[in-house]
């Protein structure tokens, strides 16, 4: 089966194949970029947040002090009050926690020895976070009671001391696998804090979801309570067997009683189950995923319909020629294969064009928006998807063409 048979007619009647090529190229460029955007929006939704038994974790956030920030002693008193509530097995106060996007603390983590870097790692400074959040330690130890009782003069992000980091961050900074005991500098400044890794947890999600080129699992835990920090977050773990909703209400009452008069006016604190807080924080990502998925599907359907319509016409135009070929001995499957191969060629040209476009668009978007490079894997996957779509579209017209009886050739000539 010579390809020339297929290419020559395409070159002679250029309009139809040209329109198919154009459509495929456009669809391919749109689909690749839309799917890439979609995948980025999916990252925080799919990433493991590291929280153990999240349905027994109550979070109190959207709390801010009027005037000066609360002294850390005051925050620890509130924490003690929360800890003393019936049905509570652990309580923490921290500067920021997963899913709290209003109050973020981030720092560049730099391995002291190798200068390996991880930009925008989230920093959670808080008391007893491993217990309260139910984190899974995979190496090293939790902070000691002595380390936990540290008093910072400032926020604590520039102080030196111990740190617990996520496995992802450990692998990034210390690829040799020995993170324990190593020192991380927080930022490149000369007086930057130096943190010694004492433990590694499996996962803990950053609260900066769109970390540029970073990873939502790059997180560091510091002990103590941040000073001079106006937006504390409380986390309360409900003991096994205790009624979760009752504890949540008790936490709500305690926060209002303890801090209500000193909170900024006009902001209602949120006392929620962790799951609700997570849903709230990720809602706009979910919305974007639905939107982009919808767009991608509609793009593919429109392209499918377009190729089908065009191929249908293109085949119908050649009914007589197909009849002649059948009369001359071509078998049904020859006709079928030929049309499929033709489609493969035309769509292939469109795909090549489309992939170039997709790449160019991505480069342009990278220049103007906070987007990362399109991973190369999208190109073959996008190509395969479009070729498959093309084959799907040509199937019905090609089957119809292959059923053209040879006798057609004798008509109206």
């Amino acid at each position, binding site marked *: 089966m010579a390809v020339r048979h297929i290419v020559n007619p395409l070159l002679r009647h250029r309009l139809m194949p040209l329109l198919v090529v154009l459509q495929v190229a456009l*669809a391919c460029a749109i689909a690749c970029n839309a799917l890439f955007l979609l995948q980025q929006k999916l990252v925080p939704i799919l990433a493991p947040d590291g929280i153990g038994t999240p349905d027994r974790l109550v979070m109190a956030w959207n709390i801010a002090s009027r*005037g000066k920030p609360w002294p850390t002693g005051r925050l620890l008193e509130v924490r003690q009050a929360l800890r003393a509530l019936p049905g509570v097995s652990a309580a923490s106060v921290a500067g920021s926690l997963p899913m709290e996007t209003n109050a973020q603390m981030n720092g560049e983590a730099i391995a002291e020895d190798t200068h390996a870097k991880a930009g925008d790692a989230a920093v959670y400074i808080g008391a007893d976070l491993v217990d309260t959040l139910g984190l899974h330690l995979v190496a090293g130890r939790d902070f000691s009671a002595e380390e936990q009782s540290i008093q910072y003069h400032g*926020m604590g992000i520039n102080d030196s001391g111990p740190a617990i980091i996520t496995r992802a961050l450990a692998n990034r900074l210390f690829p040799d696998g020995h993170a324990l005991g190593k020192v991380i500098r927080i930022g490149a400044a000369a007086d930057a804090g130096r943190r010694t890794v004492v433990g590694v947890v499996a996962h803990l999600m950053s609260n900066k979801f769109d970390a540029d080129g970073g990873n939502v699992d790059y997180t560091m835990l510091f002990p103590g309570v941040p000073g001079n920090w106006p937006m504390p977050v409380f986390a309360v773990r409900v003991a096994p067997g205790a009624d979760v909703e009752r504890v949540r209400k008790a936490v709500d009452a305690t926060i209002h009683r303890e801090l209500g008069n000193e909170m900024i006016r006009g902001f209602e604190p949120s006392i929620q189950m962790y799951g609700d807080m997570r849903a709230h924080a990720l809602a706009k990502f979910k919305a974007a995923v639905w939107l982009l998925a919808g*767009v991608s599907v509609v*793009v593919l359907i429109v392209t499918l319909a377009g190729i089908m319509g065009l191929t249908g*016409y293109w085949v119908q135009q050649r009914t007589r020629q197909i009849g002649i070929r059948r009369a001359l001995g071509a078998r049904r499957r020859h006709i079928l294969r030929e049309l499929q191969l033709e489609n493969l060629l035309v769509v292939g040209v469109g795909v090549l064009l489309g992939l170039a476009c997709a790449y160019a668009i991505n480069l342009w978007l990278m220049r103007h928006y906070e987007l990362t490079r399109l991973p190369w894997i999208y190109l073959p996957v996008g190509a395969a998807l479009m070729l498959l779509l093309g084959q799907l579209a040509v199937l019905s017209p090609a089957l119809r063409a292959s059923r053209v009886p040879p006798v057609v050739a004798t008509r109206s000539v």
Partner: protein
Amino acid sequence: MFDYYLRLALRRCRQNLAMVGLLVLTMAIGIAATMTAMTIFGALAGDPLPGISPHLYVATMDAREAVDKDNPDYKQPDSWLKLGDAKALVDAHRAPQQLALAQSLTTMDSPDGKHSEQAWGFMAYGEPLGMLGVPLRFGRPWTAQELAARAPVVVIDSDLAQKLFGTADAVGRSVLLGGKPFRVVGVTVPWKPHTVFLDLQRNQGNPQGSNDEFFVPAEAALDAGVGPFTSGECGKGAPVIGFQSAAVQHCRWLEVWSRLDTPAQVADWRQFLANYADAQRAAGRFVYPPQPKLYGARAWMTLNHVVPDDVRLNLMLAGAFLLLCMVNVAGLLAARFLRRQADVAIRRALGASKRTVFAQHLVETGILGLAGGVLALPLTWLGLWIVRLQPVSYAEAAKFSPGVFGALLLFSLIVGLLVGVLPAWRVCRQPPALQIKVA
């Protein structure tokens, strides 16, 4: 003739309803997606105060003093200034109008203690109502004397007046701010810019904002213990945020806007600003080169990414999708027209010129485009409705307006004609004799 083409086109559309339906639907989806994205983008990226904001400029400069040297969080000169600097810039009256302001969230109580409302508004130095074009319903703005005398006066909007006093006309009554009585001198209509552009640093990620329910002279408010929502940059090096504090004497917390109508005024104000900043630097107050700059309202919004990237990306996505739909429809139309080559050939042989054949086909695609537009109307409405349900900061911008309807019909007609040009040209190019023979 047009009338005849119209009837021909309608007759032909009836012949293959499934195909026509597919064409119209494809066009409608493309148009609806684009209109939805354009509506949202237009609502966010347009002038926040039409007719007024194009003349408004905000000043930025590096006004850091010795106490907050080496603050790593201070990346570029911003718009916040200390009260003293803001007052000096406003009091010089070098522009036709100028104003210093900072956003505040505060509690307003009625004197009888029965009503208490949280309200967003502005602490201002200057005359905000006239400069921002906030329409008054009752009363008057505060006077220059009241401003200079730090008189406890306030302008509230009619919603707040209704909530506090049960009537919109609250002029002459007192409200408690920070526990101190302030006399209501004016009542405005409920007001806010279409998009947030004033005090953007206190409004990150909230492009739609909320109504600005009160205006109060900044110093009178501070005297009553009412401060800006956040204290701004308080020169301690550490990026500490304080909320609702009136102890802002060491902070940069106000931004200065001016109304400049002509390029000469802009140049004059820019020079004045540079002179002021240089003088402060020479006096040793500003420890860094101040790099004073003026930004127009739109440029300021662009610099601060007021329109979320997602909105721009969605607009581009919708545009690309419309292009795909147009290519698609052009292809289907070409197939549809070329199937009728024989008819066209007969018409040509009977004396129709290429131009009339071309026109006839354009009329047909124009009608299809319009049909697409009519179908796109409910689809756009649906799209905007879906966006309004989303938990996104710009949901409120997704409003259907009559202007959109007109634009949509015009747009769909243009799309229809554009899409038809290629197929129509193709079909009228056929040599008539050959086609008749084949038929």
